[in-house]
């Protein structure tokens, strides 16, 4: 503890902070020419190209490529669409499929060499995704039940004693219009942000220790690096999981709006 303090003060170790997420524009000064934006566009091209190639033939007996594409598609279609939304799920599969692949690829970019930045750690992107999800499930609810019955159904749960509305109505309204979209966005954002920060700490720390003049620090440096590698695998799991979770929750909201009797 004393060594660290001593070193930090003398050699000036700068721990990673939120400012590490503010990457400068790749060139020029345009706010549109940054790494996360480039990565997001690249992900769109990559996903489109992969799935167009995979689905091009739509053969009864699939090639390996088609099988790979189909596996991902049918995972979203069956596990997130059919089993959660139920009848009429097919209309929402394109949205869920886009959401899942978009988030997954951008998340995994976080650990791919040279990219190594999860776009979802910039809160704007999760806000956009949660915004789409929010718009869609409310639109479904309004279309299904009409605006007034839909809002009434949310605000006043049927089959509840009148006095309970004092408590339930604000909770329900907050849940549907505030908590759901915000948690959807922040869950994804926070996981990617924290994960990236964690990797920065271990790898940056290892790098710092390696270049330190103190022999003990050089000796300890590989431990920090190897923990960084372990955390990279852990991150990969979290990245996949978060892509799954945001899609799952969106599917659940859609299913709720479709089935809503309350």
């Amino acid at each position: 503890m004393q060594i660290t303090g001593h070193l930090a003060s003398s050699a000036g170790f700068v721990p990673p902070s939120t400012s590490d997420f503010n990457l400068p524009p790749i060139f020029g000064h345009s706010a549109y020419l940054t790494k996360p934006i480039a990565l997001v566009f690249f992900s769109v091209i990559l996903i489109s190209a992969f799935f167009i190639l995979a689905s091009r033939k739509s053969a009864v007996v699939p090639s390996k490529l088609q099988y790979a594409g189909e596996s991902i598609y049918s995972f979203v279609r069956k596990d997130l669409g059919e089993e959660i939304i139920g009848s009429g799920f097919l209309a929402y599969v394109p949205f869920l499929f886009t959401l899942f692949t978009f988030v997954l690829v951008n998340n995994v970019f976080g650990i791919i060499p040279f990219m190594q930045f999860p776009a979802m750690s910039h809160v704007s992107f999760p806000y956009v995704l949660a915004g789409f999800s929010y718009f869609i499930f409310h639109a479904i609810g309004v279309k299904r039940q009409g605006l007034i019955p839909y809002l009434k159904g949310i605000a006043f749960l049927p089959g509840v004693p009148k006095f309970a509305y004092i408590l339930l109505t604000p909770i329900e309204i907050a849940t549907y219009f505030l908590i759901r979209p915000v948690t959807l966005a922040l869950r994804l954002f926070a996981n990617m942000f924290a994960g990236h920060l964690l990797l920065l700490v271990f790898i940056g720390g290892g790098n710092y220790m390696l270049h330190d003049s103190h022999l003990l620090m050089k000796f300890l440096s590989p431990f920090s690096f190897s923990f960084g590698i372990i955390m990279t695998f852990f991150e990969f799991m979290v990245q996949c999981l978060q892509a799954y979770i945001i899609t799952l929750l969106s599917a659940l909201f859609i299913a709720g709006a479709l089935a809503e009797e309350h």
Partner: protein
Amino acid sequence: MEAAANPLIPNTAELVVGVIAFSLLFIVLRSRVVPMFEKAFTARTEAIEGGIAKAEHAQREAEAALKAYTAQLNDARSEAQSIREEARVQGAAIIEDLRGKAQEEASRITAAAHASIEAERQQAVASLRHEVGALATELASKIVGEALDDQVRQSGIVDRFLTDLEKSSK
């Protein structure tokens, strides 16, 4: 820079890019990818269901053929049964017929025997009657020829007569 330091404050450029990128990906996947995958799934389902339907059809045909064969076999079996039955009935009728004929023959023979016996008896009676007449005449002449006062003698004549009669009939 104050605002950028707070990671929860969105960046306008990124919001715009996020909307455009996501919409773009959605349009591409929805128009180019999802229909193709769905087409493949449908084709696969149809191929499998078609195969199943074909197999079911073949099975139904096989079952129908088996049923037809069984029915034919049963027909043949019952026909054979009826033929056997008929043969048995016919055989029985023939036996009955023959028995009747034999019976008739037997009764005819019996009747003929009876008739010949009757004729012989008639003949015997006739001849007996003739002989008795002759004998009676002979006896009467003998009686007339001999003395009839003695009872013993008389009975001796009768005995002799009868013996003679027996002897002559033998």
